[in-house]
């Protein structure tokens, strides 16, 4: 099937997933101890407030109606107000989520720039010193907690050497990029370790494949073989892995934002959970779930583009 049809199909498949997410979030909030109204209002709420929220949530109505009201509120972007910060949840999300996305995207980019060339070196010099050094280094990186690495990088490159700012986010686009470099690198390390390991194994598998021999038998230049034949095939499994690692990446983002004092959605999530600010938690969960689904879609599409066998 042509690529456009495949894309359309996958987009359609996104809809039930989104519905599922809505259901899960709806259920989770109602599972919390206490009733949703006091969850939303906190301890401070006049009777008038309580009545208003009750009506808004449809507490006295049946569950399906409540769910419908919930869905409606999501689509009108009215996710309630933050108890702690006293601002609309939607506004908070719009302000903070892009920061996390920027951090995560930059980290992914750095991770790829690290993982791909090193995976090639390690694979092509398999079992030699370079390979063992690279694998050993990444193994240590994998065992290193994100907050520890962040703390060290922040201290060495920020506080001591003054090459980078000591946390914070900055104002202009370039300034923000500058602020994000250190935290993105922290976040990138464990991801690049996982990617490198997988890519290295994939390259080794591909390099021994017959079609590489055939390509050599055609007398093609080694660089061409490497890029067109080896890399494209090796990337296929790595792209899938990358998609699956989004969850871990977002988790790491939470910690990184804490260490580097970056005003992102991750930190907001933690603060909100601490502060029992349920409207924010609910809104953020929704937003994150949607974000993750879209990332999955993108990686699926990337994989279909790389590997024509998938879309059939």
């Amino acid at each position, binding site marked *: 099937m042509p690529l456009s049809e495949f894309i359309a199909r996958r987009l359609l498949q996104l809809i039930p997933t989104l519905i599922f997410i809505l259901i899960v979030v709806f259920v989770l909030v109602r599972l919390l101890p206490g009733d949703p109204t006091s969850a939303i209002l906190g301890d401070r709420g006049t009777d008038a407030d309580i009545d208003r929220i009750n009506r808004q949530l449809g507490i006295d109505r049946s569950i399906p109606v409540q769910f419908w009201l919930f869905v409606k509120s999501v689509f009108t972007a009215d996710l309630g107000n933050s108890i702690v910060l006293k601002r609309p949840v939607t506004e908070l999300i719009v302000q903070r989520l892009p920061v996390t996305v920027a951090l995560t995207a930059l980290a992914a980019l750095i991770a790829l720039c690290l993982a791909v060339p090193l995976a090639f070196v390690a694979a092509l010099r398999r079992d030699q010193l370079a390979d063992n050094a690279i694998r050993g280094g990444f193994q240590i990186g994998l*065992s290193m907690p994100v*907050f520890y690495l962040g*703390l060290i990088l922040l201290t060495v490159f920020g*506080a*001591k050497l003054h090459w980078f700012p000591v946390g914070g986010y900055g104002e202009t686009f370039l300034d923000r990029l500058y602020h994000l470099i250190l935290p993105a690198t922290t976040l990138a390390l464990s991801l690049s370790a996982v990617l490198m390991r997988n890519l290295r194994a994939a390259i080794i598998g591909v390099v021994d494949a017959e079609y590489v021999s055939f390509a050599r038998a055609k007398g093609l230049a080694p660089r061409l073989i490497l890029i067109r034949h080896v890399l494209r095939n090796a990337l296929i499994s790595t792209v899938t892995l990358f998609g699956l690692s989004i969850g*871990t990446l977002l988790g*790491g983002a939470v*910690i990184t934002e804490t*260490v580097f004092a970056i005003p992102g959605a991750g930190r907001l999530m933690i603060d909100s959970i601490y502060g029992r600010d349920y409207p924010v938690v609910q809104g953020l969960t929704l937003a994150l779930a949607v974000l993750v689904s879209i990332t*999955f879609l993108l990686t699926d599409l990337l994989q279909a583009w790389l590997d024509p066998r998938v879309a059939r």
Partner: protein
Amino acid sequence: MAAARVRLPRPLILGGAILGVSMILAIFPSAFAPYDPIAFDYGALSQAPSLAHPFGTDNFGRDVLSRIIHAYRIDMQIAIFATVFAFVFGTIVGAVVGYVGGRTEALFGRLVDAIITFPFLVLVIAIVSVLGPGLINMYIAVSVVGWVFYARIIAAEIKVQKRLDYADAGRAMGYTHLRIIFRHLLPNAITPAVVYWMTDMALAILLGSSLGYLGLGAQPPAAEWGVQIADGKNFMTTAWWISVFPGIFIILTGLGFSLLGDGLAEVMRARK
């Protein structure tokens, strides 16, 4: 059978050694720690590493080395308790689901996918925030989410084993399904889950120390590596040893588990 002269792979030996030492330190910390881990010593605040205090003291005068050694107990506990329940429960559920197959398995797959995709850490923090901070709640939180990884691995393996001849033989002999699943298929299917368990323990230490750092796991004044790092995070430029040394042990212990897992995987591969 060449079993007698099998050379154990180096990762296995190295990992085993690290973990062996870790277990000893976890069980008998007082025998090795020179000082009381929670005793303040106002006369020795934030001292740099010296002969008396090889890893220095923290801002309360506590000996960093002794705290690190005592932290072994908590962090090794975390490695075990945050994973073993998930392992057992996930294995059982995975075995049954993988055997039954069909719609159940498809549905289960969807559920697993949904859980796996969501940021693990966020889920755990959310659960901990509802239950309240503390080690036991952390074990619960991690297990509640973590069992699906084991279930997925086991279900896939059981699916493969189910098609092999000896499974048919069991059915031909009229064994009950339960017996087939647990006495015949599972022993053959369990190896990947055990290898994953090793990796999971390394991840559990990372997770546990992260929660400790955030204040949601082990609670001060308990000695736990994440807590120690948090203790020292504001003193990185003046008393770096408070945070730096505990981190090294997180890395070391995590490496131990990873190496053990790699070594086990190699041994299993060779056995095939």
